């Protein structure tokens, strides 16, 4: 398609879609206006019913917990897909491990990056664990905390070497964390099914609201999702790094 035709198609589309978009925006409710009844109902009953102070967590991990389970499995499938693709390519290359590790050393990293990396490892792990553990008490949860935990592993790589990352997160551990996180969610759901006849029903004791051990299965599910997400991201990270010289390594 020539540039001229492209422009013509764009102008035609813009002439129709632009006014339609503006017309639609004009009909939006004002900022802060809320019409639907569901949010109000949940705000009124969630803390009393589930003892979860963060109503968002009560919705995502309890009232629509199956939805979150499927989201978790989307990530699971994506990570497995990438891992399979990269591992198949690695087999084709068939290089020796020692040479690989040597080649994957981050070259040209300044002392500043190394020191900052070391300093941030602990911070990331603690922040990640905090976000995972307090999902039912405030903003956060397994998904967000899991990613923060995985960036801790990235800091290890930036501060040290590829081999350090591999030693800290062997495949058995990352694969295992991912599998336990994904399978555990289903297991918690099955506990609800067996104990009360309903999949993912919140059957654990609810405890005192606004304490760490409250809201029944919600913190347990957060922990499992955190495990799955952290394991998945570290797995992606090490799969990619195993495949690839980092940019610094190639630029010599």
């Amino acid at each position, binding site marked *: 398609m020539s540039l001229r035709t492209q422009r013509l198609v764009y102008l035609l589309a813009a002439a129709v879609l632009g006014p339609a978009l503006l017309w639609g925006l004009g009909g939006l409710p004002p900022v802060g206006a809320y019409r639907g009844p569901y949010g109000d109902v949940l705000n009124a009953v969630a803390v009393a019913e589930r003892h979860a102070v*963060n109503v968002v967590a009560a919705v995502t991990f309890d009232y629509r917990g199956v939805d979150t389970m499927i989201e978790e499995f989307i990530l699971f499938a994506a990570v497995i897909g990438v891992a399979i693709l990269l591992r198949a390519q690695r087999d084709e290359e068939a290089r020796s491990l020692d040479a690989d590790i040597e080649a994957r050393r981050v070259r040209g990293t300044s002392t500043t990056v190394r020191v900052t990396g070391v300093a941030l490892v602990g911070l990331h792990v603690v922040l990640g664990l905090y976000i995972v553990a307090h999902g039912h008490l405030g*903003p956060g949860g397994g998904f967000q905390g899991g*990613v923060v935990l995985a960036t801790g592993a990235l800091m290890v790589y930036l501060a040290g070497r590829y081999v350090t990352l591999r030693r800290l997160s062997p495949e058995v551990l990352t694969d295992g964390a991912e599998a336990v996180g994904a399978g555990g969610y289903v297991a918690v759901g099955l506990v609800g099914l067996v104990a009360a006849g309903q999949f993912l029903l919140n059957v654990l004791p609810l405890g005192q609201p606004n304490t760490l051990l409250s809201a029944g299965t919600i913190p347990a599910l957060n922990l499992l999702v955190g495990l799955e997400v952290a394991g998945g991201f570290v797995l*992606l990270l090490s799969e990619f790094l195993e495949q*690839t*010289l980092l940019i610094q390594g190639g630029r010599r």
Partner: protein
Amino acid sequence: MTPILALVLLLVAGAGTAVVTTRDPLDQAIVASFYGLILGILFTVYQAPDVALSQITVGAVALPLMILLALAKIRHQQQRRDQAVDGGGEDGAARGPARDRGPGREP
């Protein structure tokens, strides 16, 4: 609409345009990360801290990281291909084994 909301919305529009107008993918990954951060601020201003946290972890951390890793991989492959082309001309046999060990090992 409060002034801070207007400011953040303008920042989102500016950062979004910057992502589109940045042509080099490596630069674009960094700009996209910044855009993710701005979106996180927008959600916080709209009083949705849960969504803001998800946005920051996915938009400002996970997505740029995956782009960077993919770019590093593409660059690595291109290097190997370039080497294969170079080696094929004069001393293809001599360069062959060295290539298998990967570019990082060459002196």
